[in-house]
């Protein structure tokens, strides 16, 4: 039998696909949104998003019960987390490790204090700093500095504290950090794992949850009302992945159930139902396998989108089963008749869809390229299986329900639908007017529009960040070096240029790893500023002339300076476990064998913007090529704007390809117009609807519009008629109604997804497919009337 070969090839193909899928890697992280071929600035941005210090932060809030219980829970939780190696740093306002910090700072004050210069240890310099220290004794600060004066008369320790101390300290209630309104205890946790390592982040998040439950249990009934909240990049990745997983499962179950129920209602034959689903299952497997081969990893969003495509891919078998039915029987001779009568039309439909999706393949946005490849592979496979395999599998005598009566009823409605031609034109004009009116704010140009993090969580993150004084870093200088020392030295040269900008109010402030660990060059220079003992004593004696102090009281100072001159330089291993180490580790990072010093810049006003031009001008000539200024938000928005621009071009190219294909096949501008016009009206009406309901359009809505063309063209082609006569048989009409229902169900369900990427496509394609069918029916009647 001739049917054996296609079936055998098909089965082998399925086995290969299953083999590929079983070895695929699935992900749900940021990677779908990050460019495949980044610029230098984008690469730095991506490094930060994936592995930067900020990416490892977890903000923890404890709510409920009373303030004292929250504080105790915070302390109990912090104690457990500090014992867990997954966490580099746990801060909640408790004085942990302060003894060690203080000793390191005090013992190394002549290496760490940027005020240590040769001038500071001249007679004049000593006189000035002593006078200042004595003045301080008179003020409130003196309460703290009095005891240190004999050892540190130049005030280096206080100078270091001033430099390290921030203004934005969280409020402290009952010994633990709390939100400003006092309703929430706060902890700041930094994980050892990178933010992009979602598996490790998930383990960290789980560990915090478990430790919180244990801490809560240890506090008795008073703590039963407490609950935990967490935000941060890692937490968001973990939640996004869980959401995508959950929704993909839910959506695929729902759309499968819906389609199965619909098809069973129509076919009334379990055999037909199972056979009808074979092309879809084959297509889905081929799609996943193709993406896995082409991209290495399959993104969860692609799978989610795949569930919608089930509704589109099932169309082909619907056409086969419903249209080929003659004398109440499908299979055998009747399916050969179907191939002759309908396959050319369906083939054009498949190719218009494929052309539409093909434009996505060229997108620099990996998420879109995956969707494109998945759809092409899936649809081609589904169509090929329907055409070449399914007819061989249909048993002789397979009967499905006769839908002719339904088709005739539909035919009657379509005939009457003609009167709606003018209202549709009016609707089109109104939609265009709406779109024209909204043209200024139609598109959302921020990458965050695609963020899978719910707005409520983002708001909580913002609140906790503000309360913790850990604002989201927007402006960042990245200083590149071949090793840690060269990066530190370059960051010190940059800092010299930044200080005047702080004074001029161009920037609010900046951070630098050298503040925690100065370069060895700086440390050597500072040590060289310290005079030998005899010389120091001589200058000190001269310096205190006119000041109310006696040199004899400052023996501890002379001893400390003499000891400092012989101290080894401070190195990273010398500060292990201290908060200095945390500071330097967060800001000095090794990436691919090179070292980056990160210098976050603060805007002059909180949450404001800074004058990038002046910062760049101030840095001109400092280590050219090694210092990069990044506006993280600006850069990511530029990235997204680039995607959007590209997607518009690609969509237009896809549209042009579809129109070109239709023209090549029909050789009739009039027919092409009749096929495309209803689709254009559908796109305009859907876009206007989205604009009117307050949605700002993202790149995914745009893709949805392209899909309305790619999917809707199939229906329009049938209405236009196989050979342009515009005559449509009742059974064909019924099959179209069923096919559209499955497509609408598939995409429409996506519209209920909470993942913005999926939601946007669903909200566009779901209504769009219905409208494409309706408008095709309404507008097609005229051509039939004209033709007959």
């Amino acid at each position, binding site marked *: 039998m001739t049917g054996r070969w296609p079936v055998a090839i098909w089965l082998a193909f399925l086995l290969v696909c299953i083999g590929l899928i079983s070895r695929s890697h699935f992900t749900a992280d940021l990677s779908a949104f990050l460019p495949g071929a980044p610029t230098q600035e984008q690469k730095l941005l991506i490094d930060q998003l994936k592995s930067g210090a900020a990416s490892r932060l977890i903000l923890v809030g404890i709510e409920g019960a009373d303030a004292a219980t929250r504080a105790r829970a915070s302390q109990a939780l912090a104690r457990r987390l500090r014992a867990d190696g997954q966490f580099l740093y746990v801060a909640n306002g408790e004085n942990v490790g302060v003894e060690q910090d203080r000793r390191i700072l005090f013992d190394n004050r002549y290496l760490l204090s940027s005020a240590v210069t040769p001038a500071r240890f001249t007679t004049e310099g000593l006189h000035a700093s002593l006078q200042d220290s004595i003045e301080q004794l*008179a003020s409130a*600060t003196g309460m703290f500095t009095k005891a240190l004066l004999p050892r540190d008369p130049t005030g280096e320790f206080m100078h270091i504290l001033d430099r390290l101390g921030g203004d934005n300290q969280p409020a402290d209630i009952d010994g633990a950090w709390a939100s400003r309104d006092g309703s929430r205890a706060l902890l700041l946790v930094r994980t050892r794992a990178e933010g992009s390592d979602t598996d490790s982040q998930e383990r960290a998040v789980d560990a915090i949850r478990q430790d919180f439950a244990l801490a809560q249990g240890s506090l008795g009934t008073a703590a039963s009302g407490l609950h935990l909240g967490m935000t941060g990049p890692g937490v968001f990745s973990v939640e996004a992945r869980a959401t995508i997983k959950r929704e993909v499962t839910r959506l695929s179950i729902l759309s499968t159930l819906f389609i199965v129920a619909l098809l069973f209602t129509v076919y009334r034959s379990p055999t037909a139902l199972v056979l009808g689903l074979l092309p879809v299952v084959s297509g889905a497997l081929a799609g996943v396998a193709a993406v896995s081969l082409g991209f290495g990893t399959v993104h969860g969003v692609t799978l989610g989108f795949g569930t919608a495509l089930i509704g589109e891919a099932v169309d082909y078998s619907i056409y086969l089963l419903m249209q080929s039915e003659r004398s109440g029987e499908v299979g055998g001779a009747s399916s050969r008749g179907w191939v002759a009568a309908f396959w050319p039309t369906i083939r054009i439909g498949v190719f218009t869809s494929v052309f539409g999706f093909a434009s996505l393949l060229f997108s620099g946005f990996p998420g879109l390229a995956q969707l494109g490849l998945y759809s092409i592979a899936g649809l081609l496979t589904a169509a090929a299986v329907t055409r070449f395999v399914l007819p061989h599998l249909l048993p002789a005598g397979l009967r499905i329900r006769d839908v002719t009566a339904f088709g005739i009823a539909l035919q009657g409605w379509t005939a009457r639908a003609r009167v709606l031609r003018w209202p549709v034109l009016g609707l089109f004009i109104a939609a265009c007017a709406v779109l024209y009116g909204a043209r200024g704010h139609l598109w959302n140009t921020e990458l965050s529009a695609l963020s899978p993090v719910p707005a409520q969580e983002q708001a909580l993150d913002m609140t906790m960040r503000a309360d913790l004084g850990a604002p989201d870093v927007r402006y960042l200088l990245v200083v590149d070096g071949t090793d840690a020392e060269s990066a530190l030295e370059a960051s010190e040269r940059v800092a010299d240029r930044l200080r005047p900008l702080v004074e001029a109010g161009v920037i609010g402030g900046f951070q630098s790893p050298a503040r925690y660990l100065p370069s060895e060059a700086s440390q050597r220079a500072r040590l060289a500023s310290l005079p030998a003992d005899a010389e120091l004593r001589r200058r000190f004696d001269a310096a205190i002339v006119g000041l109310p102090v006696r040199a004899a009281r400052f023996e501890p100072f002379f001893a400390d300076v003499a000891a400092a001159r012989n101290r080894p330089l401070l190195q990273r291993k010398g500060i292990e476990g201290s908060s200095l180490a945390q500071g330097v580790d967060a800001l000095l990072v090794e990436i691919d064998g090179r070292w980056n010093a990160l210098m976050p810049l603060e805007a002059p006003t909180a949450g404001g913007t800074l004058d990038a031009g002046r910062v760049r001008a101030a840095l001109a000539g400092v280590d050219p090529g090694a210092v990069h200024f990044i506006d993280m938000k600006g850069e990511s928005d530029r990235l997204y704007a680039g995607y959007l621009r590209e997607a518009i071009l690609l969509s237009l190219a896809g549209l042009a390809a579809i129109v070109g294909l239709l023209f090549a096949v029909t050789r009739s501008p009039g027919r092409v117009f009749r096929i495309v016009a209803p689709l254009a009206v559908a796109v305009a009406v859907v876009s206007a609807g989205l604009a009117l309901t307050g949605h700002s359009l993202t790149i995914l809505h745009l893709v949805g519009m392209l899909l309305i063309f790619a999917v809707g063209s199939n229906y329009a082609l049938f209405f236009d008629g196989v050979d342009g006569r515009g005559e449509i048989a009742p059974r064909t009409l019924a099959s179209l109604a069923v096919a559209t229902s499955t497509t609408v169900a598939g995409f429409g369900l996506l519209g209920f997804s909470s993942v913005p990427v999926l939601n946007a496509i669903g909200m566009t394609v779901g209504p769009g497919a219905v409208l494409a069918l309706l408008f095709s029916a309404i507008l097609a009647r005229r051509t039939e009337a004209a033709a007959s």
Partner: protein
Amino acid sequence: MSRSKTFLHLAFILTLSGPCQSTWAANWSLDQLMSALAHGGNGMATFTERKYLAVVDIPVDSSGELRFIAPDRLEKRTLKPSVETMVLDGNTLTIERRNQKHVLQLQDYPGIAGMIGSIRATLAGDRKGLEQVYQLKLNGSAEHWSLLLKPRDASVGRVVKQIQIEGRQDEVRSVEIEQGDGDRSVMTIRKAGSS
């Protein structure tokens, strides 16, 4: 981050606690004084302060303004020899000097809390607050009273030996603090507008 706070905390860590007890004064009663002070409400005053410190040979002087806003905000703005603002609001102590701001929690610095807190509690007429930390002894008359505060706990005594507050009616005129290390400060207060 709050490094400066925590370092300071450790540098000058002190502890404070103790049982409660009260002592009664003669003729002009403690209740009368506290009630008068409590009704004094908000106030603005100038101060001069002289500190006698072992580390320097001569006394160091400072002066500025004091402002009390009931019930628990005390602002001490030093104008000479250099500008510094210290604000005690609730339990939060903020010290601002040359664009450097330090925010501290009072409970982390019981010794300093004892010194600054005693002034605030006196201005507020907060007898209960005072008695938690000190034994109170009142002498003199309404026209010239003298309130002696002695720490209840020995560990506080190492930092604050005693505080003597003098005044007239509901007005605090001077605060003298003797510290555990022998250093001493005398703050003279003049209500704004009065002579």
